[in-house]
């Protein structure tokens, strides 16, 4: 075909077609290009059709052929590009329906039980298999329960207002200084039924108060867990066996206990109980001050006066009691440097130290 058959502007359009086609980056652009080249009205092919109509008979044939070639080429190229662009759009749509699982997921909020409560619950679990249940008493106590019933002499310094909090309007009331009054209450309550129950054994966890200034190792409020067992023919060997079991359950099978003589008015004999340092296993570290042992609790056989106060015959019944400071154990095990952290309640501390059960 001779190029002269077609007008100059059509030839220009033809020349620019591949570039214009390539410049179409989306379907909208392609539709506009399609309109320009092969649209029904005003397009290049529409003008060519007009040319063809106006052409002489002898030229019509030749011109028609040329126009057809040109139109077909445009149509095919446009169609091909259209499917390309449609495929790309489908591709995008597919991407839009995916979600990258590496994006940060929503994580359910994690709370925590307080480390001290967790430790208390743990101790309850440790003693549960031995038949201990939980007894609790009020934080506001009477002198009778907090001191008298525990064989603590009337002039004992702990009774003074320098050590114990008293109430403005009730001289006989105080904030309990230990969980031991729960012993007194429980013994008094159960004494009439002790025979049918076959003795008494319980754990008494709770908050206690002493008039100590707040510093890294002292707090006017802290927690204790007290344990008590009353039965027939109870001796120091039973105390040892019980605590040896409990410390193993708490710290693992390597835990050993050691008894040292000590004195508490409500027990006789009395002892302090050390446990093989759970951090170094006994080889010596900062926590056990190189001794391999850490002091964990005070204990002893229930003083006959304590049983007598509750009306229990110490010729028939005997028992043991032990008490431990929850904060002390928590600090020792966790190596928390400052007691105040337990009462400050910074969520960062609570989440690291407490956690879920």
């Amino acid at each position: 075909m001779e190029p002269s058959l077609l007008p100059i502007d059509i030839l220009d359009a033809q020349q620019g077609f591949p570039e214009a086609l390539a410049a179409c980056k989306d379907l909208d652009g392609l539709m506009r290009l399609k309109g320009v080249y092969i649209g029904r009205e005003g397009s290049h092919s529409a003008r060519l059709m007009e040319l063809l109509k106006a052409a002489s008979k002898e030229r019509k044939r030749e011109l028609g052929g040329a126009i057809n070639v040109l139109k077909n080429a445009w149509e095919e190229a446009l169609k091909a590009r259209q499917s390309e662009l449609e495929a790309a759009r489908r591709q995008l749509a597919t991407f839009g329906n995916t979600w990258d699982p590496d994006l940060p997921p929503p994580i359910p909020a994690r709370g925590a039980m307080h480390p001290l409560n967790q430790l208390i619950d743990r101790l309850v679990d440790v003693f549960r298999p031995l038949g201990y249940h939980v007894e609790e008493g009020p934080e506001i106590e009477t002198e009778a329960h907090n001191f008298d019933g525990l064989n603590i002499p009337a002039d004992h310094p702990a009774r003074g207002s320098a050590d114990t909090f008293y109430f403005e309007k009730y001289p006989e009331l105080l904030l309990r200084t230990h969980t031991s009054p729960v012993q007194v209450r429980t013994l008094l309550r159960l004494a009439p039924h002790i025979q049918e129950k076959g003795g008494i054994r319980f754990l008494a966890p709770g908050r206690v108060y002493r008039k100590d200034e707040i510093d890294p190792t002292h707090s006017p409020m802290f927690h204790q867990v007290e344990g008590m067992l009353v039965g027939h023919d109870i001796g120091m060997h039973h105390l040892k066996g019980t605590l040896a079991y409990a410390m193993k359950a708490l710290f693992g099978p390597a835990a050993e206990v050691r008894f040292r003589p000590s004195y508490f008015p409500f027990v006789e004999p009395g002892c302090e109980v050390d446990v093989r340092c759970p951090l170094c296993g006994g080889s010596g570290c900062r926590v056990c001050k190189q001794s391999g042992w850490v002091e964990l609790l005070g204990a002893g056989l229930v003083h006959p006066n304590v049983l007598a106060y509750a009306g229990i015959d110490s010729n028939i019944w005997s028992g043991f009691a032990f008490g431990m400071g929850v904060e002390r154990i928590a600090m020792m095990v966790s190596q928390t440097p400052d007691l105040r952290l337990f009462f400050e309640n910074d969520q960062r501390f609570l989440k690291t130290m407490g956690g879920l059960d």
Partner: protein
Amino acid sequence: MLIEIKALRQELPGLCDIEPLALCELLASLGFPVDAVDTSNGATVFEVDVTANRGDVLSHRGLARDLAAKLDMELSTLPVTTLREGAALLPVRLESEACPLYATAILELGKAQGTPSEVQVFLGHMGASAKNLPPVDASNEILHRLGQPTHAFDADTLQGALIVRWAREGEKIVTLDGVERTLTHQDLVIADEAGAIALAGVMGGDSTKVTAATQRVLLESAFFDPRTVRATAHRHNLHTDASYRFGRGADPAMAQMARDLLVQRLEAWAGAKLVGAWTAGAVPPTAPPIPYNQTLLERVAGEPIPRLEALALLKRLGCQMAPEPGCLQVVAPSWRHDLSIADDLAEEILRLRGYAKIPSALPPLEGAPEPLSKDYLKRRQLASKLAHLGFCQTVTYGFVDPLESQEGNPQVDEQAWRTLKNPLGEEYSLMRGTLLRDLRDTAALNLDRGAREVRLFEIAPVFVAQPQDATTPIRECWTLALAWAGETGGEDPLTPVRKVSALAGKSHLIGVLKALDVPDAAIRAFERWPLAGVVGGAKNQLGWQFEVSLEAIPDAADRVIPAFKAFSRFPSVERDLSLLVKLDQGYRPLADAMTAKVRTSAREAFQELRCVDVFRHKSLPEGRQAWLLRLRFQHPARTLTSEEVDGWMASALDVARSLGAELRG
């Protein structure tokens, strides 16, 4: 108590073969742990922890005596020559039972030669500085060596007879430390005819003290009742080496011997000449004998202990056996005030044998274990649930500042009943009536420290004064409090940021309460929702808080698995109703009215009505909001037809319309 190893070995030569470290172990095994070892001054000095019942070991001699019993060794002989006593040079009147024995002597001091240097060094190791006044230094040395406190008066300052008596109420004395003290009739004093010259067993008086100019001394070596001395030391906050030892019980049998030793030292150190020595009163009678109980011993020990072994151990402690028909009686030595019952003897026998020898056994279970209490379980389960719901458990003190707790708690009179008499400070003086204040402060603290979201709870008693109840004037009421503050979400692409303090944020907390089975009535009755506090110096609405008595929360069910409840296997139908309601329309009245209506017609097929969307937008008619209500129907015994559901929906819409709502087009 400080113990110099050299001086300890002088009392018990057998210790020379025992290394200090082994000695520490030995002391700990006897019940006297060594808290610190000081080797800095050319001597080894132990800081020994002695329990309150063992006044008898508060000296080198006393500790050596206990070690000697443990190791079955002999104490060294005390280099004492017993003085021949003469007539009283001065009347000594013991007017109180609190002083049964008063040994004394008068000496004329020679040309002062001073305290030997090794004694000065020893006193230095005891944390006392030598005064280079032989009467004072010798008295101090004897206290640390033998445990018997003594005192020297300047005899020329005394006026007339010596009287040991109760102080007169309001009587004054200037003690050696230069402080004027006002006495009560419960303070025991040594007095001359002009007035009190010493607080018995605690501290001497300033007016009669020994100085460098003193020429004649009167020595005192007495026994004072421990309770009296403790009370006086406590009353005047005057805790001295003497009151420490008398307060825990000195050895009355040691009084005269200590005086004799003191005289000997003054003769040697100061060229003193004895003018005369005499004693008023007598050594008090020993405590009643203790019946020996082999059965009890073996019960306590957990194994058989041969009687002969046990008795030998008691003898080593200084006990004497008084065989009586049928029962062996044990007489404790004069220095062991702590031995009074058979259990005490058993402890001593075990202590000397070593607690390490005690066997180990679990006691048999004699009765059935009791279940864990519901209260304890409820608290434990609540805490666990809340932790899993993303809340952190806090523990705060039980006492608060009375001023701050008044907001929301205006009953100041009521507060007086739960106020402490001797608080650590005003800010810790009130037993709290609410946990919310502490929770609020804790939330503010966390936000101040940069926490984005704060979720806290505390389970603790609050205190309610009920003065009309004589048995329990202050009731302790276990309470749960929760707080949710800051902003939630925004940590991942799927959860948008929401300010908890926004009005809608309260719903988050109510959702938690419902998850805990807090009854609706308790939730509705609660007044103090907004959590406002000071963060970054400005007062802010932080979020929401709530407090509920644990009594209001149901106990965990008794049954391990609840009773079976049939559920419908027929299809359930959900229909939505989009309503335009007035902006001030309350949800509950509308929902209750619709529920009531639908329930009467649909009966057991009606399951639930709930609002699942609230839409407020300017495109809605003015004063209106759109609620999307979802109703769910399911019949227990058959499949529902769409006609009947249509009917119920129409009746629901009717009710809504009657309350001013309209169907949203």
